[in-house]
């Protein structure tokens, strides 16, 4: 793969990885698969210990991440946004009490439904009479929870799937990858809509179905990584010593691909939050009286001519901020994995 290989071996939305491989096209040029050239060198920088150790020396990788974060202010800002947003959603309600479950009672305590910001409701009220500031915390919990859980679940499953596929190779690999191809060619929103309609959206169902569409890219990435790892000396050595396949996959391949996995998971969180927002807009998000940021936006956007701006900007800005923050962090993590980019 001549272009975009080293830099993109992590599935950032910006640079969809081994494009050539993803398209199922023949492999060209030197790449990490041949264990030579720039690709190979980069992977050593990740903290794989070529002299044959078990797991990544986590101290080295951690220090490297800290160093890259210190150099990149945007990544620090992203991290700060994420932490503040989590504090806002989980600790906020402790200090700022609002009724977010019973619209009738909420209406009594607020001025009216659809009222613009005022002394009692700093960010106004929504169409049901819920306080928007309180709802931002209430819905944010669900958005962040679904985003994080779906990304972790999807990436974990995808990583295992990819590692197994790449490790076994042959017809098992071919079959497993054709399944991924098939699912990847379904426009994901259609699949999500069908599943949400069939299973009725709740937080758990939303986590599961979003994970169901987000394990595919990590599966591909880790499979690619496994192809390069399984021919490494230390894996060969474990095999020669009689290590079981299970041990090789779980103790040697997955830990050495952990950098790629973590970076990809970061980007997946951002994408999962966007997917949930899209489902929310279509009325398939977390159902009332629960809510999420996407669902909160629905009414303001649908009735856009009414110009209820306080129903649009708070939740809208929250989504954009968090998604951009996760992308910044993901970018920095990815760069910490890649020696060549750092030297630019």
């Amino acid at each position, binding site marked *: 793969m001549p272009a975009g290989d080293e830099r993109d071996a992590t599935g950032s939305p910006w640079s969809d990885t081994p494009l050539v491989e993803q*398209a199922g096209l023949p492999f060209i040029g030197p790449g990490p698969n041949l264990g030579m050239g720039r690709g190979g060198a980069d992977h050593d920088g990740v903290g794989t210990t070529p002299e044959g150790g078990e797991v990544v020396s986590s101290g080295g990788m951690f220090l490297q991440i800290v160093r890259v974060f210190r150099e990149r202010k945007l990544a620090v800002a992203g991290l700060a946004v994420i932490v503040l947003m989590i504090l806002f959603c989980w600790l906020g309600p402790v200090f700022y009490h609002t009724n977010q479950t019973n619209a009738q009672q909420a209406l009594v305590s607020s001025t009216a439904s659809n009222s613009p910001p005022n002394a009692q409701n700093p960010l106004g009220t929504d169409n049901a009479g819920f306080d928007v500031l309180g709802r931002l915390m209430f819905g944010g919990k669900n958005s962040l929870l679904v985003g994080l859980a779906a990304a972790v679940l999807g990436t974990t499953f995808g990583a295992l799937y990819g590692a197994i596929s790449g490790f076994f190779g042959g017809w098992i690999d071919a079959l497993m990858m054709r399944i991924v191809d098939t699912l990847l060619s379904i426009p994901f929103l259609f699949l999500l809509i069908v599943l949400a309609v069939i299973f009725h959206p709740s937080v758990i169902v939303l986590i599961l179905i979003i994970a169901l569409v987000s394990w595919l890219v990590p599966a591909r990435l880790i499979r690619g990584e496994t192809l390069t790892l399984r021919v490494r000396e230390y894996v060969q050595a474990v095999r020669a010593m009689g290590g079981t396949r299970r041990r090789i996959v779980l103790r040697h391949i997955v830990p050495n691909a952990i950098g790629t996995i973590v970076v990809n998971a970061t980007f997946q969180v951002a994408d999962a939050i966007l997917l949930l927002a899209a489902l929310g807009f279509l009325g398939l998000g977390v159902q009332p009286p629960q809510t999420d940021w996407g669902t909160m936006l629905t009414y303001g956007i649908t009735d856009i001519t009414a110009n209820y701006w306080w129903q649009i900007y708070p939740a809208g800005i929250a989504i954009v901020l968090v998604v951009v923050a996760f992308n910044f962090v993901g970018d920095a993590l990815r760069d910490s994995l890649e020696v060549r980019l750092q030297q630019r």
Partner: protein
Amino acid sequence: MIGFMVRRVIQALVVVIGVLLLVFLLAHIIPGGFARAALGPRATKPQIAQFNRINGYNRPIPIQFWIYLKTLVWHHNLGYSYHQNQNVTNLIDERLPKTLVLVGISTVLALIVAIPLGILQVVRRNKPVDYVLTGASFVFYGTPSFLLGGLLILYFAVDIHLFSVSAPQGQTVGAIVSDPRALVLPELTLAAITIASFSRYMRSSMMEAMTEDYVRTARAKGAGPRRVLFVHALRNALIPIVTLLGLSIPAIVSGAVITETVFNYPGMGLLTFQAAQTTDVPLLLGTALVATLATVVGSFLADVMYAVIDPRIRYASR
């Protein structure tokens, strides 16, 4: 080239069969199946049994799959929408061309904007323009398209009446294309995210190309900066963009659902939204299937284009 095409067609067929199987199985895991969809939630057990017997839903699953394939391929029958009392195929036939127009124009627009932006960023690398464009692409990528669409309506249709609030409502493709003022905002909305990720990718692809040996060789041979950029680097940098285009088609088609819903554009995406609202499962599965087939065809065309512009693919797979 022929060998590459044959293999690519077989690969596409495998995907199509996989998707057909998946759609068929999804129809079967619905509690109560099509009978409930058709007869409503209050149907009695005998009524459901009778419905299943008449429609052949009580036969073994593999036989049902075979019948499903047969009716689909021979009669182009995607099933029946009990909510709209119409054949799913007819409903989609009427809407699909309009969605293809929306998606087609926005994709071309995205490429026309994103490629020069990416080049500009490489030329002005690490200068203010580069930072601003990079920042913008992050923000646009992080903005849900329904939010962007809503804000565009608010700014350009409600506040200053420059464009229409809703999309063209014509019955035919001709009627839609002949109302460009109404078409601008939906196209921009759908193109925005594609532009954000394409320009970003174009930048890194171009940057990569600039570090390659052939660029150094060209420079050493005395080629001017303009020639190096547009002849040597650009041609190579465009190759991954074509692949990216093929891979982005599912995302663009997904985006069409949101865009059509925001602007009330009478295409297949809006049909899907309506089907979701009314829990019209046969119609949902029909639109999902057609959207996937369109995606498979689109990706196939992108790959053929890829082989045409990159001789290495042709020769490597002979």
